[in-house]
C-alpha cells in the first residue's frame, strides 16, 4: 500500500508482541491472581516505591506499557478493518487506536515522573 508509517508501527507491534508474550503472563499471574489470593507475597507500598526509585526501572515499566499498547493498537486496528469490514473507516480507526495508545503512554510517563 506504500504507507510510509507502516514499518514504524509494525516494528512497535512486533517488539510489543514479543515483550508482552514473554513478560505479561507472569505479571498477571503474580500481581493479579497469586498475590490477591495470598499464594505469594508481593512488595508492599514502600517496596513498590523502592522498586520504582531507579529511573531505569521506571523506564523499563514505561517501555513495557508503551510497547504493549502499541502492539494492541496495531493488531486491533486490523482486526476491526478485516473482522468487521470497516475499511471505509481507515483514518478514524487508526487515529483512535494509535492515539489511544499514545495518550495512555503519556499518562503513564507523567505518573511515573510524579512518583517522587
Amino acid at each position, binding site marked *: 500500500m506504500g504507507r510510509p508509517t507502516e514499518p514504524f508501527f509494525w516494528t512497535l507491534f512486533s517488539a510489543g508482541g514479543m515483550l508482552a*508474550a514473554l513478560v*505479561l503472563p507472569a505479571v498477571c499471574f503474580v500481581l493479579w491472581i497469586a498475590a490477591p489470593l495470598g499464594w505469594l507475597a508481593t512488595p508492599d507500598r514502600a517496596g513498590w516505591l523502592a*522498586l*520504582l526509585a531507579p529511573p531505569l526501572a521506571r523506564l523499563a*515499566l514505561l517501555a513495557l506499557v508503551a510497547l504493549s499498547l502499541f502492539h494492541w493498537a496495531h493488531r*486491533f486496528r486490523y482486526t476491526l478493518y478485516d473482522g468487521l469490514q470497516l475499511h471505509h473507516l481507515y483514518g478514524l480507526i487508526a487515529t483512535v487506536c494509535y492515539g489511544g495508545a499514545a495518550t495512555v503512554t503519556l499518562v503513564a510517563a507523567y505518573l511515573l515522573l510524579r512518583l517522587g
Partner: protein
Amino acid sequence: MSRRRFHPRWFRRRTPIFWWLEKGVYVHFIVRELTSLAVAYAAALLVVQVAVLGAGAEAHARFAALLASPWAVGWHALVLVGLLYHTLTWLHLAPKALVVKLGGHRVPDAAILAGHYLGWLAATALVALVLVRS
C-alpha cells in the same frame, strides 16, 4: 487511497460481517487477534497501579482490596488465559518469521521454538525474582 469524487463503483460481492464464523481457522485467527485486548488491558492496569501508588497509602490499600475480590480474581484468570494464548501463538509464529542460518545450514524450526520457550522461562523467572517477596 485517494478520494476522487467520481470514482466508478466496482462490482464487489459484500463480505458479511461475521465471515470469520464460517470456519474454525478463521475463528482461531480472530481470537488470536483479540488477545491483543488482554495485552492492552494488562498494560492499562499497570498504569492504574502506578496511579494508585502515587495517590497514597489509603488508595493503595483500597485498590489491593478491590483486586482481592472474587470477581476481580475470576476476571484476571480470564485475562491470563488471553495472555497465555497470545504468548503461545506468538512464540509459535517465531520459526515462521525467523530464518536463522548457522554454518550454511538453516537452524530447524524446533530449535528456534525451543530457544523462544527458554526465553519465556527466563523472563518469567526474572518477573518472579523482581515481584515475589518471601
